[in-house]
């Protein structure tokens, strides 16, 4: 969920007066798009006000090398009412396919894994990082937010999303006030979400051994063993977020934003599709177990950003420090620099660097001769890692306040060993492989 937590948000873009014909097309497009965001019954009502809506829509492709591919369509519609109140609607649809790292390690022999559903299995060739190729999902997400400005600006919103094995519902509210001739803006926001996790094949019993069909003589014996690794009911997760923010105008061109965020998550936080290899002293896998994460997590984040208006562009720099009671700390540095080649065409550079330290229960694998820990995960996403992004974007302002943008980004993750000694044959393999991804995006605003 995102929030619009600054008074500056309400400042309208400088819109050039549209020519009648363009305006007509714009209205038609606006009307067509608005239909996406509301139930059919409201479409006629929207038609009357179509000219007042501001619509942003984007289509994004995200593709990892040999792994996950995603297509995401996002649309937002904003309506300003004359009385300083604003309605924001948002709809997101995304579709994911491809393989993701299961958490198991590569071996000198091919390996067989059971699919999450328990129906069928897949083989991973010798020397290859085990990937679960069953990853496939479609998600639909919608949200609505209302804000009202007077001396105090208040906002409230609702949120919902649904994917095959996951559902989330949330509410949020915020309070904002300007001080010091509106040079200083304070913001306090909160959100609550309730998520239901209903994994394919049921939730695995924590750290239970994966049942493999080949190890059983009959289907019945295999099914009984598989069922013993599963809890059939769904589980839930609750998130409470608090955010305190300040935006300060520093001088005629620069502003500074600082946020403190507190997030408390409780409930089912384990990834039901991730496993760990249990290896002997030679690095040979003896068993595959399902991971287990603690059922609560308290996160703090500190974010500071400065943004400046340049004669021929705009630039921002930000830094985020994040820490939590799983001992994961992260540092994020990010900058965007936009340059206007002409009044209607700009280019933008985006750079981001991210670095995180592993959670205290992260282990790339487990050792067979040691006792099973209470919590363990081999998910590289919560291990030691650095990542960077390099992106370019080009924007074209059209008549009537329309804008078209194209964005291309390269994202690379470099997972690292958290200090674990690598035994025997595992030394022959890259247990912390680099991940590379490309993002391509087209956006249109009117």
């Amino acid at each position: 969920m995102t929030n619009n937590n600054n008074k500056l948000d309400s400042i309208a873009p400088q819109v050039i007066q549209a020519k009648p014909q363009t305006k007509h097309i714009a209205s038609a497009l606006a009307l067509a798009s608005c239909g996406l965001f509301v139930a059919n019954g409201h479409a006629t009502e929207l038609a009357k006000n179509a000219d007042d809506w501001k619509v942003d829509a984007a289509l994004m492709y995200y593709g990892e090398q040999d792994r996950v591919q995603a297509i995401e369509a996002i649309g937002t519609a904003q309506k300003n009412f004359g009385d300083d109140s604003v309605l924001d609607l948002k709809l997101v649809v995304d579709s994911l396919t491809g393989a993701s790292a299961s958490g198991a390690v590569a071996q000198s022999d091919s390996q067989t894994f059971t699919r999450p559903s328990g129906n069928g299995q897949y083989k991973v060739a010798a020397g290859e990082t085990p990937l679960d190729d069953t990853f496939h999902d479609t998600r639909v997400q919608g949200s609505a937010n209302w804000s009202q400005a007077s001396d105090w600006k208040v906002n409230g919103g609702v949120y919902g999303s649904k994917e095959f094995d996951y559902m989330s519902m949330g509410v949020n509210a915020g309070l904002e006030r300007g001080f010091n001739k509106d040079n200083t803006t304070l913001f306090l926001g909160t959100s609550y979400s309730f998520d239901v996790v209903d994994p394919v094949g049921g939730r695995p019993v924590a750290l239970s051994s994966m049942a493999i069909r080949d190890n059983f003589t009959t289907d019945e014996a295999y099914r009984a063993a598989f069922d013993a690794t599963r809890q059939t009911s769904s589980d839930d997760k609750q998130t409470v977020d608090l955010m305190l923010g300040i935006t300060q105008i520093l001088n005629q061109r620069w502003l500074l934003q600082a946020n403190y965020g507190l997030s408390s998550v409780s409930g089912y936080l384990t990834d039901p599709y991730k496993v760990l290899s249990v290896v002997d002293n030679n690095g040979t896998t003896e068993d595959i177990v399902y991971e287990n994460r603690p059922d609560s997590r308290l996160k703090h984040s500190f974010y500071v950003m400065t943004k400046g208006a340049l004669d021929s562009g705009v630039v921002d720099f930000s830094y985020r420090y994040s820490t939590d009671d799983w001992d994961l700390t992260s540092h994020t540095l990010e900058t965007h620099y936009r340059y206007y080649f002409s009044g209607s065409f700009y280019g933008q550079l985006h750079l981001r660097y991210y670095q995180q330290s592993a959670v205290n229960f992260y282990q790339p694998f487990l050792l067979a001769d040691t006792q099973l820990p209470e919590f363990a995960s081999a998910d590289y996403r919560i291990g030691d890692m650095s990542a960077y992004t390099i992106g370019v974007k080009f924007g074209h302002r059209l008549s009537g306040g329309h804008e078209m943008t194209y964005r291309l980004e390269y994202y690379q993750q470099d997972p690292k060993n958290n200090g674990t000694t690598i035994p025997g044959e595992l030394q022959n393999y890259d247990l912390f492989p680099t991940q590379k991804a490309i993002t391509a995006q087209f956006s249109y605003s009117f």
Partner: protein
Amino acid sequence: MRKITLIAVSLMIVGLTGCSSLGVQPWEKGQFARADMALDSEKLDQALDDHIYFSKEGSSGGRAFAGGGCGCN
């Protein structure tokens, strides 16, 4: 954790006190009326980026709520 919260709140208060002497007159705010100076001038990009990083990295949030509503992490 209580210590961190205390430090954060203290920093906020110190920052706020310092801020009262900062700023410009209302008629000097022209640059901030530019659409590209709005904090959410690229809200779609931000939403898409947040979604990617939320699902691929161990921490999230900062600029906005930490988020959720995605069974991806």
